[in-house]
């Protein structure tokens, strides 16, 4: 497989959040605000890169029968390390993410890539795959968070990831016209459903156009 395709597929064709619907719990829970979604995405990228590289490096010594427990222990150790680092250096963010930070362990995206890709490919390919999948997941989180925060609070607020200090914010929709439902639990599901439908629609249109083009080419010959 070409290196570029491995990387790009993780972002678009196999996007974890919106095409495969993996790791939905953090996607719904941490997209209340743009900054918490960003923090979650970064934590997931760090975890998936470390686990994919580690697992791909030891893949020859892992017996096939007990591979799942081995994978889970590696993932859990790496998540513990990242959680402790975050508590030390990004305390506010780790408080916002709360239990969802620990729950990265059972995020199907990470176990899925470890099992499906890292166990079968070399270290560099696994790194590229992890980077692509991670960026795709981050993009999904950010898209959902942008839509939710914008409709729910009328604007966006950015703060520093390290200190949690507010950096810059703006508001476009006046307070009377915002829909607070979207920052609440039901809004998460509804907005995710709407975005998923939109992406489905685009994917279908692209596939149809490709088919038409192929038919036209075949007809022309």
């Amino acid at each position: 497989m070409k290196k570029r395709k491995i990387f790009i597929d993780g972002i678009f064709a196999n996007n974890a959040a919106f095409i495969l619907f993996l790791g939905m719990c953090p996607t719904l829970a941490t997209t209340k605000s743009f900054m918490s979604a960003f923090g979650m995405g970064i934590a997931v990228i760090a975890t998936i890169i470390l686990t994919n590289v580690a697992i791909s490096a030891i893949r020859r010594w892992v017996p096939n029968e007990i591979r799942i427990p081995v994978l889970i222990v590696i993932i859990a150790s790496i998540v513990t390390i990242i959680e402790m680092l975050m508590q030390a250096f990004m305390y506010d963010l780790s408080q916002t993410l709360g239990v969802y930070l620990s729950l990265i362990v059972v995020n199907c995206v990470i176990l899925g890539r470890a099992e499906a890709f890292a166990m079968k490919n070399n270290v560099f390919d696994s790194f590229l795959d992890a980077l692509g999948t991670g960026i795709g997941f981050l993009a999904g989180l950010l898209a959902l968070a942008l839509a939710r925060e914008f409709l729910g609070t009328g604007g966006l607020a950015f703060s520093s990831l390290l200190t949690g200090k507010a950096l810059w914010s703006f508001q476009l929709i006046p307070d009377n016209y915002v829909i607070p439902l979207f920052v609440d639990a039901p809004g998460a599901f509804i907005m995710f459903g709407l975005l998923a439908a939109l992406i489905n629609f685009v994917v279908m249109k692209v596939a149809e156009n490709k088919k038409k083009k192929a038919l036209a080419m075949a007809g022309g010959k």
Partner: protein
Amino acid sequence: MTFIILGLSAILINNIILTRFLGICPLLGVSKKNSSAIGMSLAVIFVVTMSAILSYSLYMYVLHPLGIGYLKLVSFILIIASFVQFVEMFLKRFVPSLYQSLGIYLPLITTNCVVLAVSLDVVAMSGGVANYDFLTMLIYSFFTGVGYAFILIIFSFIQERLINDKNTPRSFKGSAVALITIGLLVMAFMGFRGMI
């Protein structure tokens, strides 16, 4: 009385799916048929309660006294994975009929975030004192599992109709419309807020 309130709140008000978004993947995955939703629900209730008991005991009597509380994530996930494996082997050997109906859902539970989240919840500490004593932990974990089962079964009835519905637009088919339906379900359950 406090136990009844704790149980009711875990089912209706602080439902783990509806307010904390946990366990959505199995909710969408196995809810397409009633029978599988019921099988999954029973398996979840059992595994959540048992693994909460095991994790609580391990943390309170071993990890915390030894000062190695940071190992909880690794040890809990190992406990859950091995417990699920053990239950699977036990059922296969002694209750084959139950194994037939639950069999395929059991391995899936390991990656169900509800189980790990409840285990992490019950060992939460504030100021060096455990938030839950043993009995409260038992009630909390059991009723959280029941709350999960409750929503899973309700949703499977809705899903059965959604799948056969001809009016759903093509791009909404599958997960998109299911997610929006859960959103409406959450809104309905928000009515219970403030009841206790």
